[in-house]
């Protein structure tokens, strides 16, 4: 067996207490681009966590915790499509048109909007988002959390310093480290 060579064996264990804090952002961004509806996405993620909880005994530790949760999530998303298709009694292909509900259905009316950002661009940006979250997962938890609060949630320095009880210069050191490792992590595919 090669188990002894596995550097991070202890990582492949389940820790459901931390699932929500650790994976919600990634799962949400993964789901929202596929179902295009906040509420539906949240329902699916909630079901995923529950399903994970109920099938913990099936986890063999071969994949990482997150990979495992994503495999459950994928099935939940497919289930969602099955359900919404059977409700309507017909196949439905959801696509991400710029203004789906209110604008007219005519293709001509959509052409102008689409030229703004191509479908490929959109795909690329979604992947980029997941890649960034992926890289953030590799930082230590506190670093990643502070970086997200500052950069993605756009909170101001004072709020974050108060919450973590750190000085502003501490915060900037953490931000610096996070940005440096993030850039390094993204370098290969995105820079």
């Amino acid at each position, binding site marked *: 067996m090669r188990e002894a060579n596995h550097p991070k064996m202890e990582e492949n264990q389940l820790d459901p207490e931390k699932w*929500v804090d650790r994976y*919600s952002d990634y799962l949400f961004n993964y789901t929202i681009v596929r179902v295009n509806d906040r509420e539906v996405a949240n329902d699916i993620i909630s079901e995923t966590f*529950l399903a994970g909880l109920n099938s913990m005994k099936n986890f063999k530790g071969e994949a990482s915790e997150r990979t495992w949760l994503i495999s459950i999530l994928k099935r939940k998303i497919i289930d969602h499509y099955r359900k919404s298709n059977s409700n309507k009694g017909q196949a439905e292909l959801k696509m991400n048109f710029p203004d789906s509900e209110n604008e007219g259905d005519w293709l001509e009316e959509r052409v102008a909007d689409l030229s703004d950002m191509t479908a490929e661009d959109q795909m690329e940006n979604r992947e980029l988002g997941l890649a960034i979250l992926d890289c953030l997962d590799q930082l230590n938890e506190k670093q990643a959390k502070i970086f997200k609060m500052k950069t993605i949630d756009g909170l101001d320095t004072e709020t974050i310093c108060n919450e973590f009880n750190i000085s502003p210069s501490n915060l*900037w050191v953490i931000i610096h480290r996070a940005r440096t490792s993030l850039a390094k992590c993204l370098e290969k595919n995105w820079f």
Partner: protein
Amino acid sequence: MKGISIMKLSCTEAASVCNKAEYKEANLREKLRLRLHLFFCKTCKDYHQNNRKLTGLIKKADIKPCSAEQKEIFKQHMKNGSSKTSK
């Protein structure tokens, strides 16, 4: 020492100002000193450019954070063993 270095910035300081600038938290004096430093220092110039690029990528990715309230709801659901919010 202090007299000559009023406008001078070490690379560590430059990096710090550079980061602050990405969050629009560098003041004018800091930004001027950074400019001057970047004019002479190739390493920091590269860092600055990479940093700009990183900000651009993050903006482009338009990551949607899951709200703290939503996370609480998830936790509640996990505790209750049901995805319906109990009312």
